[in-house]
C-alpha cells in the first residue's frame, strides 16, 4: 500500500480538532496513540449490534460476541507469530500483565534467588517486583545505563549468575526511546536458566515482533499505545510458564468446577481471565492491529524515521538545546531541555499553541536521577505526524523560549 499521509490523517477524527484556537498537533504518542475510525467503528458496532456476554451463552448474539473476542486473540497470535492462541492472556494492559507475572512467581522464588531489572524501566515495571520481593525475599539487582541512555551490557553479563531467576527489561525506554538489545539479553539470560519478561508497551506501535524468533518467555503490551482502546492489553507467556503459575484473581470464567471444598481451574487462557473480560476492548485491539498491518510496518518505520531525522536536525538549531539519548538506536522520541528553562514551562506554552507534548519525569525517575535533571520535554512522533507539524513545533519552541527567557 502506498503511504498517503493526507489519507491516513483523514482516518483520525481527533486530528481535525483545534486546541486553544490552533490546529491540534499531537506529539505525545509515547503516552498514548490516537484512534483511527476503523477502531472507533468497531467499538460502536459491537455495542450497537452484538453486545453480549461471552463463552457461556447459548444464544446467537453471545456466540457472535464470543467469536469476535476469540478472533481478536487470533489476530494477535498471527501478528506476533505466537505458537498457541492460549498463550495469549487478555489483561487490562502492561501494568496488569507485569503484576500477573510477579504474582505468579511469588511462590516460585525464594531468598536465594535474584531478579535483574533494567535501569531504563518505567515505574510500573519496578513496583510489582518490589512488592513480590517483600514477600519471597528474592533480591532485586539493577542493570545500569550509560550516558547515551543504553543498558550497560557488560555489567548485565556480570550480574547474571546461577542465582538469576528472572530478567525484566523494557523493549524500548519510554523516556528516551532507546531500543534495547532484547534478543542478546534473552540469549544470555537463558544461558543461566533465567526467565525473561519483556515490556513491549513502547515497541509495538513502531515495529512488528516475532515472539517465537525472539524467544522471550513473557511479553506484554497495551493496546492503547498502538491505536487500540485503553484498558486492554495482552500478556504472552510460554505455555510451560503459564501452567506453572497459579491463577491471579478468582472469579467466573477462570474455573472449570466449583464445590465448597475445591475448585478446579479452567484451562489456559481462561485460568487468567477471571470475570467478564473487556470484550469490546479486545475487539478494538484486534481491529487496531489489522489497521496498522494495512498501513504496513515498513511504511510506518520509514515515515517515523524520516520524522525523527528531520525533527532532530531542526531542534538542534535551537540555541542551548540538550537532547538526551541522542546517539542511540531509538524510536521516534526526542527528550530534551533548553538552557535553564523548566520543562513544565515549555510544555505549558506549547499547549497554548495547540501542541501536546509530555513534560516531567515520564514515570522514569531513575533515568532523571542519572542525568541529574528534574525532567525533560518529550516529543514522540507517530506515522500520522507530518514534517509541517515539526516545523510548527520548531517555530513554537522558539517563541516559547523568547517568552520564557
Amino acid at each position, binding site marked *: 500500500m502506498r503511504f498517503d499521509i493526507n489519507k491516513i490523517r483523514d482516518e483520525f477524527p481527533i486530528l481535525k480538532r483545534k486546541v486553544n484556537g490552533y490546529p491540534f498537533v499531537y506529539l505525545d504518542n509515547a503516552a498514548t496513540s490516537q484512534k483511527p475510525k476503523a477502531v472507533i467503528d468497531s467499538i460502536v458496532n459491537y455495542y450497537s449490534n452484538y453486545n453480549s456476554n461471552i463463552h457461556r451463552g447459548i444464544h446467537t448474539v453471545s456466540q457472535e460476541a464470543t467469536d469476535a473476542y476469540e478472533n481478536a486473540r487470533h489476530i494477535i497470535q498471527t501478528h506476533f507469530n505466537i505458537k498457541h492462541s492460549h498463550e495469549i492472556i487478555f489483561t487490562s494492559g502492561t501494568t496488569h500483565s507485569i503484576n500477573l507475572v510477579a504474582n505468579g512467581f511469588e511462590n516460585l522464588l525464594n531468598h536465594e534467588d535474584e531478579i535483574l531489572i533494567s535501569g531504563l524501566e518505567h515505574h510500573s515495571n519496578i513496583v510489582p517486583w518490589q512488592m513480590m520481593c517483600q514477600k519471597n525475599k528474592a533480591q532485586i539487582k539493577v542493570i545500569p545505563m550509560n550516558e547515551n541512555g543504553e543498558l550497560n551490557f557488560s555489567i548485565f553479563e556480570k550480574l547474571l549468575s546461577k542465582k538469576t531467576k528472572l530478567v525484566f527489561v523494557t523493549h524500548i525506554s519510554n523516556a528516551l526511546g532507546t531500543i534495547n538489545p532484547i534478543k542478546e539479553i534473552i540469549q544470555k539470560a537463558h544461558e543461566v536458566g533465567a526467565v525473561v519478561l519483556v515490556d513491549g508497551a513502547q515497541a509495538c506501535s513502531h515495529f512488528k515482533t516475532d515472539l517465537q524468533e525472539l524467544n522471550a518467555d513473557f511479553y506484554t503490551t497495551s493496546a492503547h499505545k498502538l491505536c487500540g482502546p485503553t484498558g486492554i492489553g495482552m500478556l504472552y507467556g510460554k505455555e510451560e510458564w503459564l501452567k506453572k503459575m497459579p491463577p491471579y484473581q478468582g472469579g467466573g470464567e477462570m474455573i472449570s468446577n466449583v464445590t465448597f471444598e475445591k475448585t478446579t481451574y479452567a484451562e489456559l487462557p481462561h485460568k487468567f481471565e477471571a470475570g467478564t473480560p473487556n470484550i469490546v476492548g479486545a475487539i478494538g485491539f484486534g481491529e487496531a492491529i489489522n489497521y496498522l498491518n494495512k498501513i504496513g510496518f515498513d511504511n510506518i518505520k520509514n515515515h517515523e524515521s524520516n520524522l525523527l531525522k528531520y525533527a532532530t536536525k531542526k531542534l538542534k538549531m535551537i540555541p542551548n538545546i540538550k537532547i538526551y539519548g541522542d546517539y542511540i538506536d531509538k524510536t521516534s522520541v526526542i527528550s530534551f531541555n533548553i538552557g535553564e528553562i523548566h520543562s513544565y514551562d515549555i510544555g505549558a506554552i506549547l499547549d*497554548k499553541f495547540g501542541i501536546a507534548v509530555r513534560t516531567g519525569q515520564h514515570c522514569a525517575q531513575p533515568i532523571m536521577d542519572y542525568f541529574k535533571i*528534574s525532567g525533560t520535554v518529550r516529543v514522540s512522533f507517530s506515522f500520522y505526524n507530518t514534517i509541517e507539524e515539526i516545523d510548527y513545533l520548531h517555530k513554537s519552541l522558539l517563541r516559547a523560549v523568547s*517568552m520564557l527567557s
Partner: protein
Amino acid sequence: MTIKEIQNEIVEEFSLFEDWKQRYEYIIELGKSIELINPNYKTDSNLIKGCQSKLWLHAELSRGKIIYTADSEGIITKGIAAILIRAFSNQAPLDIINSDVKFIDEIGLKEHLSPTRANGLISMIRQLKYYALAFSKKE
C-alpha cells in the same frame, strides 16, 4: 488594601491584555518580582505537592499579618505564586481564611484551577489557607 481590592486590581490589570501570550508574558514578568523565600526555607517540608516544577512556600506572622514568600524552578509557576502572594500576603489570618479565589478565573487562568493540572495551584491555595488557619489558632 483589602484582599478583595487587591484581587480587583489584578483583574483590572489582566483585562488590558488581548490574548494569552500577553497574559503569560505578564505572569512571567510577575514571577521575576516574587517575594523570594529565604533559601534556608527551601526545604522538602515546604514543598507544595502536585507541582511538576518544584514550588516552595513559607509563611510567617508579623504584627498580626501573614507574610508569604515562595520560589519555584518553573517561571510560570513562580508567576502564579507571585499573583497569589500579592493577593494574600500582609493580611490578617481571618481575612485570608474568609477570602475566595474567583479572581483566578477572571484573569483567564481558569485552566490552572483544574486539580488534574500538574502545576499545584490548588495545592498552593490550600496551603496558604492552612497557614492562615494555623496562625489564627495561635493568636
